[in-house]
């Protein structure tokens, strides 16, 4: 166990922050970058995970399980959201016959 702890101790918290920010930004850029809505959903998942990572790091740092529990909940929610999201996607595909994000511009102004 202790070696784990030493590892935690040895990696400065900043790096976790940097990492998660980076992942978050990548996800964000991806969401803007792609037209395929499925990919965009994946990017969202990526963003969630970056947050999870951050929370986990903090929780370990604070020695408080709450953060990890929160991650757990985020996972639940993410699962639920993905379910719904994909369901909507399917419906959309049925109605719009495309999952291209730029196809959706009938509601405007």
């Amino acid at each position, binding site marked *: 166990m202790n070696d784990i702890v030493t590892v935690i101790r040895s990696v400065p918290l900043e790096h976790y922050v940097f990492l998660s920010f980076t992942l978050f930004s990548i996800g964000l850029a991806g969401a803007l970058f792609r037209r395929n809505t499925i990919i965009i959903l994946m990017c969202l998942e990526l963003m969630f995970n970056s947050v999870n990572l951050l929370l986990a790091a903090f929780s370990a740092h604070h020695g408080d399980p709450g953060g990890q529990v*929160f991650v757990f*909940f985020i996972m639940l929610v993410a699962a639920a959201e993905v379910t719904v999201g994909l369901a909507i996607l399917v419906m959309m595909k049925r109605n719009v016959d495309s999952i291209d994000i730029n196809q959706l511009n009938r509601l405007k102004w």
Partner: protein
Amino acid sequence: MSAIILLSILGVVLLYLGLGKNNKRFLAPVGMLGLAGVIALTFLDRRPLPAWGNGALAFDDLSIAFNAGMAAITLLIFLFGSDYYARMEQNVAEHYALLIFSLCGTFLLTSYQNLLMLFLGIEVLSIPLYILAGGKKRSYRSSEASFKYFLLGSFATAFFLMGIALVYGVSGSFDLATIGAYAQAHVGQHDILFLLGLFFITVGLGFKVAAVPFHFWSPDVYEGAPTLVTAFMSTVVKMGSFAAVYRLIGTHIIVLPPALERTLWVMTFLTLIVGNLVALRQSQFKRLMAYSSIAHSGFLLLAVLSHHAMAGRAIFYYTFTYSLATVGLFVILTLAKRAANGDENIRIFRGLFRTKPWLAITTLVLLLSLAGIPPTAGFLAKYQVFFMAVDNGYVKTTLFAVVMAVIGIYYYLLVIREAFTPNDEGTVVQLNTTNAVVIAVCGLGVLGLGLWPMGLL
């Protein structure tokens, strides 16, 4: 608490009812019955803090007021729904159940004590809405609305979560009180992560209340979603979200860093401007309402940021009366829309006064209330906002808000004008009892609360 439990049970019950083929007609009544029970229970929830789930939830007077109010509005919407869903074959029970679940979420929002509950509340609120927005499964616009709402919503959620993570990282807790204590301890210090965290959280909430520039979803979703859902979104959801915003920002549980305050003021300005100005050029009633609701968010944000002692009640009064008016108007819209076979341009109101004078007069009252003309409740609501802002010294801002309010009156007048100009082709609006009741309740409520507001204040 018991109210929340009852709500979830109610949802499940409705689902089971939905299994039966021809139980459709029972759904609305049962739902309303349940909601009545919920309202009753909310008042029993008064407990000294820290209350439920190890202080995850706390029911103070304000949250109870909000809960009761939202339940009441939902009840009205159900009443409306009994007619609205009459012609729909499938999934009626699901719709009702989802409404109930979403309402459950708003209950969490009014009484959360830690960020986890806030987060869950938002999700429980949103996920059913994502689905409901797509309620018209065959309709292009419905699915578009649903998807836009979903995608932007989860996008905002990501930021929201990032915010929570950062705040947690700095303060080491999700509990509002602890965070507040932390903020107190570090007030005036350069605590960048905390700042970022709060900032991202406000972004998430800002999305929910459709504050500019996170408002893009609302017009499209309002327009695309089924009218009943739109009504729900623009009323109950708004109440819930603002209850949440108020608890986090308005009260002094957490003292915001001045930098963030400034940002929020800018956000308020933008919201007021965009909401009012764009609404000027809307010919589509639902979109008009969407922008007007953005504008109202602006006023409410003003109320929140005034940090006035009475802000909570004021916000409740504002949102509740606003919701009453809005529900009534959406019902009327549905009627007029049917008469004009589905058109949603404000032109469809034309000649309303000729055919149904009292309906037109109610419309007038409701719109005047939104516009904030005495003696309707809307006037008192706006009045309180200005009052609080001036009282805490935001004079120029208030003056600006006043001007915006004037602009606001203009587009409501456009609708009134339509309703009161005689038209050539006489489209006769059909009005059945339940809807009549809903509209009457809304109209009288708006008037009554305008004349005798003490009940709510």
